[in-house]
């Protein structure tokens, strides 16, 4: 696929590139549809409920019906909202969520842009989404929205730092920011990065949950106190864009965790190598998605001030210690 992508850009190849991006978008939309269904089923299972059962066999068409409802709904813009920003905000939130997927390698051969700085690109571009939710919050002219937007911004800025810092250990050991190089390094070492970088892995999981604003860090849209945070005044397809961005990030973050800490497409044991890499990737990826939903069903929500304390007073020093120890071990061993 890298040779295929290295072709000179003309009208024909440009069309093919655009089509392959559309295929990825289709895959991601399919994932989002069934991730929502899966989430409702898993949470239902944990809480001794059935989850959706009525629409289609086993409720499989529930999300399709929900999305159809959202798209057909009347487009409501509140009278006192800031109209241009209100319209623009869902787009600012969604576009980066899809743009980050460009650098993710799914196997050694199935990947799009093989960027030298893939890991950093993901984190940098995903930060723009917060700008979208903050703009949406302000434009809606609603106090719950504003509080939600404020929390989103504070949370994103505080947790982006430990998120990057926890990855520095892996980058030090690999000597590269390229995601394919990182997976190849794990193949070379014979173990996945979550073993030598166990501290970094823990910090990364906690910080990534906060970046995704999922339980226990979903105070951004804590429905019992803030209705729906920055999405309170949104309905119809604009609301769908925000939701879509959120679930596309679940896709992205689960992929990044799989690639960086769980060995990407590598099989767990040598003798299982006959199973194609994409299967291993999907298995690990699905485990991560299940993990997010599992946490959602079992953990209570954190308070806003506890969240800030955890970010600045616990995760940041720990990630600095992790960098220091990794650098020391790399020099001594």
């Amino acid at each position, binding site marked *: 696929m890298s040779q295929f992508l290295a072709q000179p*850009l003309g009208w024909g190849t440009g069309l093919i590139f655009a089509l392959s991006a559309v295929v990825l978008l289709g895959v991601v939309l399919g994932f989002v549809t069934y991730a929502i269904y899966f989430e409702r089923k898993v949470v239902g299972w944990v809480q001794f409920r059935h989850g959706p059962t009525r629409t289609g066999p086993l409720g499989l068409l529930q999300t399709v019906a929900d999305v159809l409802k959202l798209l057909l709904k009347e487009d409501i813009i509140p009278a006192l909202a800031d109209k241009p920003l209100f319209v623009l905000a869902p787009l600012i939130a969604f576009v980066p969520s899809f743009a980050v997927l460009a650098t993710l390698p799914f196997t050694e051969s199935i990947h799009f842009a093989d960027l*030298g700085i893939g890991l950093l690109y993901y984190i940098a571009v995903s930060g*723009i989404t917060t700008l979208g939710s*903050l703009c949406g919050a302000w434009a809606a002219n609603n106090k719950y929205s504003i509080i939600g937007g*404020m929390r989103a911004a504070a949370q994103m*800025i505080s947790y982006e730092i430990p998120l990057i810092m926890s990855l520095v250990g892996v980058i030090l050991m690999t000597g590269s920011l390229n995601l394919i190089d990182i997976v190849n390094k794990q193949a070379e070492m014979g173990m996945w990065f979550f073993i030598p970088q166990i501290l970094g892995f823990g910090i990364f999981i906690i910080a990534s949950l906060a970046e995704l604003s999922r339980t226990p860090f979903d105070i951004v849209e804590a429905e019992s106190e803030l209705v729906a945070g920055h999405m309170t005044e949104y309905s119809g397809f604009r609301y769908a864009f925000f939701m879509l961005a959120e679930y596309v990030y679940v896709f992205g973050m689960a992929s990044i965790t799989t690639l960086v800490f769980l060995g990407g497409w590598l099989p767990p044991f040598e003798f299982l190598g006959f199973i194609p890499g994409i299967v291993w990737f999907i298995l690990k990826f699905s485990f991560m998605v299940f993990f997010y939903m599992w946490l959602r069903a079992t953990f209570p929500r954190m308070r806003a001030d506890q969240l800030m304390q955890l970010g600045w007073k616990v995760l940041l020093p720990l990630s600095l210690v992790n960098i220091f120890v990794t650098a020391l071990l790399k020099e001594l061993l």
Partner: protein
Amino acid sequence: MSGQFVAFFILSLLTIGGAVFMISLQKVVHQVVALAFSFLSIAGLYVMLEAEFVAVTQVLVYAGSISILMLFGIMLTRHDAHEDTGRGKFKFLAFIVVAAFFVLVFMGIQTMNIEGTPANFSQQNNVLEIGKLMFSQYVIPFEIMSVLLLVALVGAIILAKREADDK
């Protein structure tokens, strides 16, 4: 006309357009969003120059964090979204000054001649090369920069603490 030219044209239009809107828009929040677009387009220009690391840092620091911090600050402090500025008094004079400045800059760019050969880095690992240079040739400026940042950090904390003590 190459694709690169088209990309450059669009990106520079967005950069300048974002800056112009930043000045001409009335609401403070709109201005920050326009500025964020300008920042993002500058990152695009860096990508065109094959300086990917600089581009990503631009997105991470300016488009991501700085814009959000600005919005955050505006929302926490200002309650009136509009700001009325005295306009129109010196419109003609301002136009003359700006036009003269534009002509000067344009002439300067037209006659500019950069000495030396351009660096060849397109086949190399961008981040690795920057790291090597930063910790060998430019290590002293790099360390001085970090001390400067530390001083700014300590200064900010002291200022904030003094204000808290006054209350």
